């Protein structure tokens, strides 16, 4: 009994030291995925909406990536999202054909089998030749656009932001007629991650373009956390770099952060309908760790109940949020 008490105290101290603010029995372990019917989504699942999932820094080939893939499959069965956007570091060490299988084809097999499409961007761990890999739908380009309903996506290569790419981006944004313009790429312009943080250099060149041409939302990875940033000049920024890699306790507490999750892997589910973008961050264990809605015009975040967890804040990120 005494040994058990000591053990429990030691475990508690270890959890506290590791900066885990979400006290969950299975956090950090590899639990089973569970029954698909157990998942309850908070996005509204409206008719004719555009639904997609977001993953970043996923290509590790370890169990955690596979388990996030399993949760994505469950979410897909319910939401019927048609595609996934990938924020880079799709294949860590993707130097052999086996890497493509282990780090992409196997973890997302069920989604691929169901016809879900993946649209990749390049991270700092990606080989440029991934642009020729058909399942990534890059069409042989480092940067490209794709349109789904009312939403046009601008996919950038932030490893190498030269004048040619900047000119291309401006031209594409200028000619876009889509009500929703969403950009995604690897390096975040805003991030409360301690390991990397924001790329201020990229922000200097990209943010004025996004503002000028009415980009509504931006998704990035690189920091191995989930973060929803408070809207900056009307643009909603997300960091989703924890779909395979994780940097436990890496989120800083600052005024930038609207909500975050850094104690387990996660992915994001997004639904766009009319002027509203609903988002729902789901952990590897199937918990909703953030959710809400962003209104495009005027650009105000009106989410309710989304948590703002952080090591110093002590709030629970595990409870599903209400809309």
């Amino acid at each position, binding site marked *: 009994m005494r040994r058990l008490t000591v053990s429990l105290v030691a475990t508690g101290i270890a959890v506290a030291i590791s900066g885990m603010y979400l006290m969950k029995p299975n956090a950090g372990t590899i639990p089973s995925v569970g029954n698909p019917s157990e998942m309850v989504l908070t996005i509204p699942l409206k008719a004719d909406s555009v639904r997609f999932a977001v993953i970043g*820094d996923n290509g590790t080939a370890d169990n955690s990536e596979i388990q996030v893939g399993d949760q994505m499959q469950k979410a897909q069965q319910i939401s019927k999202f048609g595609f996934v956007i990938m924020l880079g*570091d799709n294949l860590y*060490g993707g*130097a*052999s*054909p086996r*890497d*493509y*299988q282990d780090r992409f084809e196997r973890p997302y097999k069920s989604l691929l089998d169901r016809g879900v499409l993946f649209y990749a961007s390049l991270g*700092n*761990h990606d*080989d*440029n*030749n*991934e*642009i*020729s*890999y*058909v*399942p990534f739908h*890059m*069409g*042989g380009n480092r940067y490209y656009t794709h349109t789904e309903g009312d939403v046009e996506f601008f996919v950038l290569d*932030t*490893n*190498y*932001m*030269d*004048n*040619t790419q900047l000119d291309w981006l401006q031209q594409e944004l200028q000619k876009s007629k889509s009500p929703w313009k969403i950009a995604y790429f690897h*390096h975040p312009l805003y991030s409360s991650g301690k*390991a*990397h*943080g924001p*790329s*201020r*250099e*990229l922000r*200097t*060149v990209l943010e004025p373009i996004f503002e000028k041409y009415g980009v509504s939302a931006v998704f990035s990875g690189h920091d*191995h956390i989930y973060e929803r940033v408070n809207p900056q000049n009307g643009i909603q920024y997300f960091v989703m770099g924890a779909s395979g*890699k994780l*940097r436990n306790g890496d989120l800083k507490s600052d005024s930038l952060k609207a909500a975050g999750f850094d104690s387990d892997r996660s992915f994001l589910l997004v639904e766009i309908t009319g002027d509203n973008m609903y988002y729902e961050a789901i952990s590897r264990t199937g918990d909703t760790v953030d959710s809400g809605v962003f209104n495009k015009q005027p650009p105000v975040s009106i989410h309710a109940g989304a948590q703002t967890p952080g090591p110093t804040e002590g709030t629970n990120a595990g409870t599903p949020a209400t809309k």
Partner: protein
Amino acid sequence: MNRPANHARNALNLAALPVFCIAGLVFVTTSYGQLDRDAQAMQDFSNKIHLYLKIHHQAEVTVPHIKPTASAKKIIDRKHALAAQINKERGNIKEGNVFTPEVAAYFERLIHSAYRQNAPGIEATLLCLSPVREDRLKPNDIYPEDAELTAMPSTILLHVPELPSELEYRIVNKDLIIRDREANLIVDIFRGAITPPPGRKLCDD
């Protein structure tokens, strides 16, 4: 009341005029000299890049471009075959084949100019060090496949000459390299091109 003092100041100004003129002339001459050297270096650089591209395109006759494919093996095999073919055609190319002393000096000035514009931004981008052993960085060698490529600071990219789409600049350790994107081959290295930012840390992600 200040008239004598003004006279003295005017006299001094007049006396200084020839000095300023000579200094100005020297400055203008030096600047023009510098411009000439820069133009020459730029031309030299451009010629060498075109020379490399010619080899790259020759290699593509043997190892043709592939259309996007679902076969990872085809993609990787083509990359390796292209690298081998270019390597063969370039032979024993030496370090400095593109970054001649004149071109390197020109790039040094461009990089310096980029730092003057946004040193904190560049340093932040380069804060994460993903070191590669210097002896693994050689012209005509494969860029180590187990090493990540740190993002290229956009401020520097906006200062240096743009490369054709087959090629890119990267900073590795303290060096500026030109890399063939498709073949993952190092074209040339300018060692010690940048000063490592203070507080640089090892990153593995």
